[in-house]
């Protein structure tokens, strides 16, 4: 049975950070009530047009800053999801939060409402890094939020960190990692800073005000982090993600696994993306346009809604390419030979044989039993691998 995931986009921020190119806006918080209403509206419409009551095993509030929503709004959205879909009893319900935007009481409420995984944008422990990134919190806010979250009953906490920040030293990065590990999170996401188009960082680099990230330094930091996290009992399961083995389970993010396994998900909210029934959808990005579009109900075939701005049909070859490009990010699981064949009714070798052989030869890919995985070295050279799969024409 296919199980689905739901992504819920909350595009509000108190401040737009200098490196961020996500679909988020500051200064439009007065639109929150109307937005929540529109979001619920969109969820209901898809629930109505779905061929059956779709089973859902993960929900994810992403942003932006979902922690800017009042707890009641989160309750309302969750209630709407449960009414429209078959949200399974043990579903993972994640929420991204910015330290410094929330209270103990708020955390207690949303935990009671069913949110069971908290992802905190810590980014760095060092004030200089945080200032450059234009983060609106300090390390104390992070540690306090983690303490409150534990008290509120959160057993599954992720911390997001950024490395390769201009002027960041290896020692400073180690200090950030130590402080993060000191809070015993179940999960850590470590992202190399990348300079995204049309962000302040992009312009600063272009004008020579900021040194561009140095890939060699970033590689050092990555390897250092991997060693420290492994030492502390974490297992890397994706290029940028580590989970701890604790209480007999590995605390991976089930929701993100859905993406990496190229399994179906529905996206709700401004700029949200979905992938279901060989169709990729993208919603209109602006908050106002989103709200406006959802004011007029329309009878559209599943999974479209009035907010859908783009759709792209994924042909079998593209789906195979994307399955490789996403699946190989999973450093332990990789792409399973059986799973590929079950899904596409063709063997992985038949489609990608020569590509795989040459990448194995270059030491970037390896077979671990029946699973094709990046090698230790291949983790940092993933693009060299992925690009060979996305480019292939039908054999």
């Amino acid at each position, binding site marked *: 049975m296919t199980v689905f995931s739901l992504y819920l986009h909350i595009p509000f921020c108190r401040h737009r950070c200098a490196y961020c190119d996500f679909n988020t806006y500051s200064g439009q918080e007065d639109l929150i009530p109307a937005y929540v209403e529109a979001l619920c509206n969109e969820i209901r419409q898809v629930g109505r047009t779905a061929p059956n009551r779709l089973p859902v095993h993960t929900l994810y509030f992403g942003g932006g800053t979902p922690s800017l929503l009042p707890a009641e709004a989160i309750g309302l959205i969750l209630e709407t999801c449960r009414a429209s879909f078959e949200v399974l009893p043990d579903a993972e319900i994640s929420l991204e939060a910015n330290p410094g935007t929330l209270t103990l009481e708020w955390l207690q409420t949303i935990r009671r409402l069913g949110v069971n995984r908290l992802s905190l944008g810590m980014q760095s422990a060092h004030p200089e890094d945080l200032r450059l990134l234009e983060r609106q919190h300090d390390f104390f806010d992070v540690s306090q939020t983690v303490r409150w979250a534990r008290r509120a009953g959160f057993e599954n906490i992720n911390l997001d960190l950024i490395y390769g920040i201009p002027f960041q030293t290896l020692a400073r990065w180690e200090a950030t990692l130590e402080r993060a590990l000191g809070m015993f999170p179940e999960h850590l996401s470590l992202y190399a800073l990348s300079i995204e188009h049309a962000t302040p960082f992009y312009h600063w680099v272009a004008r020579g005000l900021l040194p561009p990230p140095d890939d060699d330094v970033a590689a050092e930091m990555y390897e250092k982090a991997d060693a420290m996290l492994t030492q502390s009992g974490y297992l890397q399961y994706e290029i940028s993600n580590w989970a701890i083995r604790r209480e007999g389970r590995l605390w991976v993010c089930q929701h993100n696994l*859905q993406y990496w396994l190229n399994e179906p998900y529905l996206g709700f909210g401004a700029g949200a993306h979905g992938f279901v029934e060989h169709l990729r959808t993208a919603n209109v990005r602006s908050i106002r346009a989103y709200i406006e579009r959802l004011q007029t109900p329309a009878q559209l075939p599943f999974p479209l809604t009035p907010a859908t701005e783009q759709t792209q049909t994924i042909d079998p070859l593209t789906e195979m390419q994307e399955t490789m490009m996403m699946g190989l990010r999973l450093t332990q699981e990789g792409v399973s030979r059986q799973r590929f064949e079950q899904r596409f009714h063709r063997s992985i070798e038949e489609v990608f044989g020569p590509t795989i052989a040459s990448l194995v030869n270059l030491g970037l890919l390896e077979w671990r039993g029946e699973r094709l995985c990046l090698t230790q070295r291949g983790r940092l050279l993933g693009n*060299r691998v992925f690009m060979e799969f996305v480019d292939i024409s039908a054999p």
Partner: protein
Amino acid sequence: MEKEFIRNFCIIAHIDHGKSTLADRLLQITGTISDRQMVEQVLDSMELEREKGVTIKASAVRMLYRHSSGKEYELNLIDTPGHVDFSYEVSRALMACEGALLVVDATQGIEAQTLANLYLALDADLTIIPVINKIDLPSARVAEVAQEIQNLLGTPPEEILAVSAKEGTNVEKVLEAVVERVPSPRGDTSLPLRALVFDSHYDSYKGVVAYVRVFDGMIRPEDTLRVMSSGIDFRPVEVGIFSPDMRPVSVLSAGEVGYVATGLKTVSECRVGDTITSSTSPAAEPLPGFRHPKPMVFAGIYPVENEDYERLKEALEKLQLNDASLVFQPEKSQALNFGFRCGFLGLFHMEIIQERLEREYDLDIVVTAPSVEYEVVLRTGEVVRIDSPALLPDEGLIEEIREPWMVVQIFTPMEYYGTVMDLVRRRRGIFREQEYPAPNRVQLTFEIPLSELIVDFFDELKSRTRGYGSMDYHFAEYRPGDLVKLEVLVAGEPVDALATIVHRDQAYHKGQALVSKLKEVIPRQLFDVAIQAAAGGRIISRANVKALRKDVLAKCYGGDVTRKKKLLEKQKRGKKRMKMIGNVEIPQEAFLAVLGLEED
């Protein structure tokens, strides 16, 4: 038409001085083309020409003009190529004329090619009508430029026409001056036929179309004709004139200009400068001055993808149909596989061919650094000619290497004298003389090895003189030089396509500069790549491109798939454009790294 009512003339000018605009205006005024048909610069029919603002292939147009005396004249305007690489073609076009309009930009004044073309026109005994163009521009210096012209030609200012071709000002006067000052053609219709081929193009229906000026006799479509240098006989498919489209006529007589559609398959069978005569009663002597222009600059052209070899070959063959001066032969490089060694009249010619291959034929190609043709005297006394550094025999076998030297004329405002002298000295040039043909302008004459000229010399001259310097060059002779092969090794393997021949004194400096340039342009690979330069069997410079450590997208979640996939596709396309040499991916620009070393 009677010969006394015929005028054959051309327009000579430096690049961008407005030759094509003036030609357009003449065609309009004479009603040869209507305003409605007027496409800007009809004479330059190739897209590339229009973009580069120069004329690559000449054309010839017949205009009918009623003079103020009431008599009607046949004016044949013969267009000339506007670049130094085509000076032989220019000289043939001039030979077809009796007069020339010397167009000088009112804001720029006299330039190197104004002079070069003027001397060619004077050699051909043409009547010169000076025309100052662009007088509508606010920065026009009409009186000053008129003074420059008077100094040069002795033409009194009142005989110099001042026009604005763009606005049409005084253009009518140009036509009157052509009628009044240019002599009518000589020639005798009763003599055996002699017609000069001054240009040609290939037409897929009519074969090679030769543009001709009839000097003696007559051409009728029913005659059997002969190309004198090759002895090839043919029955013309058609005889006609350009007005401006091809229009058949029943006869072309002595003094007239037109075309002969020969039906021949390649332009090399009927070259520019050749003489067409009658095969039944041939002329005793061809018209003077025919020669094969020799290619001076050579480069390898290779497809990026090996499977494009056949397409590249076909494209070169098609280009050659219209361009007898393009030569090529198959070549195999260890590094670049199968491709062609191509010969060009000069650097500019090479650039045009390269651009046409890329644009018109949509080919991804690698062009190796240009080379000249060396004469290598072996210890055995044998002399071999090599046009590719990779073919240079072992140093131990060589007695002497000779390289082509050129005479270069550089025309520049006085203030750049020092920097031009410095440029020439750095390029092993020898100063010969200087002249001051216009106020505050100097013409410097040098001798310089062609190999130094083909590597960015013109660009460097332009940048040193802020665009004001101009130049002209022609071949002088072969001279011995202390030359060595500079080899480049990538990952321990010599890369033949990166080899160059340099003067021994420059080997060390150039080797170092080349290695550091290659280190910049060769991207990091999955392993360390050593780059070395070697001369005379010794490594003279080395550098290391460190292995790539990190190349991975940090994030890829649900909303990123399509966008990140596009990024990867783009990255892959960039990789595909590189050339695999052994295990090393080398971008195309590396093969031109040897260019532009002088600035470093």
